[in-house]
């Protein structure tokens, strides 16, 4: 399993909204310290949920349109999408056990 791939404003619809599987999107930016701590945890989750959930990351500096559309005003923010609908939202850094719990709740 590769690391979570980048998604952009232009690839958002095909890669997230029209995805068959649930998608977790990590909203981040290079200047955000806590985002750099979330990234390796999201990579671990991507391996653990391989086949069940797609993982993407979105750079909010380069893709402000999508960030604004979902009201992202704080990063890191993780959004979980199912059939194009946001079903879960985690704002701020959380330990891995917390993220897993919240992701499982969103998938249920």
């Amino acid at each position, binding site marked *: 399993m590769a690391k979570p791939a980048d998604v952009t404003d232009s690839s958002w619809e095909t890669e997230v909204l029209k995805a068959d599987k649930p998608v977790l999107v990590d909203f981040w*930016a290079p*200047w*955000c*310290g*806590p985002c*750099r*701590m979330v990234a390796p945890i999201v990579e671990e989750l991507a391996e653990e949920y391989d086949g069940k959930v797609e993982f993407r990351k979105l750079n*909010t*500096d380069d893709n402000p349109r999508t*960030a604004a559309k979902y*009201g*992202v*005003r*704080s*990063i*890191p*923010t993780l959004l979980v999408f199912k059939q194009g609908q946001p079903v879960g939202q985690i*704002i*701020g*850094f*959380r*330990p*891995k*056990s917390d993220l897993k719990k919240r992701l499982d709740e969103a998938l249920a």
Partner: protein
Amino acid sequence: MIKNYDIVIVGAGPAGLAAGLYAARARRKTLLIERNITGGQIALTASIENYPGIMEINGFDLGQAMLQQAEKYGLETAFTKVTKIEPQEGGHLVKTEEGDYMAKAVIVTAGADYNKLGVPGEERLTGFGVSYCATCDAAFFKDMEVAVVGGGDAAMDEGLFVTRYASKVYVIHRRDQLRASAVLQERAFANPKMHFIWNTVVESIDGKDAVESLHLRNVVTGEESDLPVAAVFIFIGQTPNSSFLEGLVEMDAGRHVIVNAWMETSVPGIFAAGDIRNNAARQVVTSAGDGATAAIRADHYISSHFKS
């Protein structure tokens, strides 16, 4: 299964990281437990320019550097929350949400959490314009008007950071003068984007799906007003994370752990350092110094109380 360590450190801010460095270099088997983010409060600080020898550094980077330095000497880490410390025969049992650890000595460097305003709208709009981390969120308010609440170093530091993005930064302070250090005050007053609203408190944070305005009250005149802003950054002091030590060690009225000059608490083998202790100067350098002192003393404590 309970894992055994010489020293368990609770909290990975500058105090805990410095303690970890000293403990690991003393060749003590040492575990550092962190419930959230390495670096603690500084992980969210844009710029630190009062750590001696370092002209300027991003707080997150400084925290990571401290961790790497300590890990080089064998410091181990665990990411979970400590729920209780129980003194037992032969050491202290450190209970966490994910397993227990036995330690000959414990150094508590759990720090302090930022205070909330406790006003209507604050919790509901957190992440939607209510922020406790300017470095995380300021960029989302480019060319907008925002507010900072508080008058200390954190409020000025973060407020100045926000001016990089926002068109106007209102500083709302309940007194008529700042508590911040002179250098930060000078810089804040000289910044044309910073506007000060004195003797004023926030009564509520209003907005439908995101922050739209603040309801303010002047504490001198009693006059009420609404201030339209897109975000409010809150820096109004901190409360020590000492609830898991309740009934175990002596604390002062503000729930800070009481220590002596060696960072020893009222319980032998338990040390406290950094923002969680009483009379702390609450600086990166003093916390790091505290941590080093605690580790040196813990090392001595183990030597004199346990057979090698």
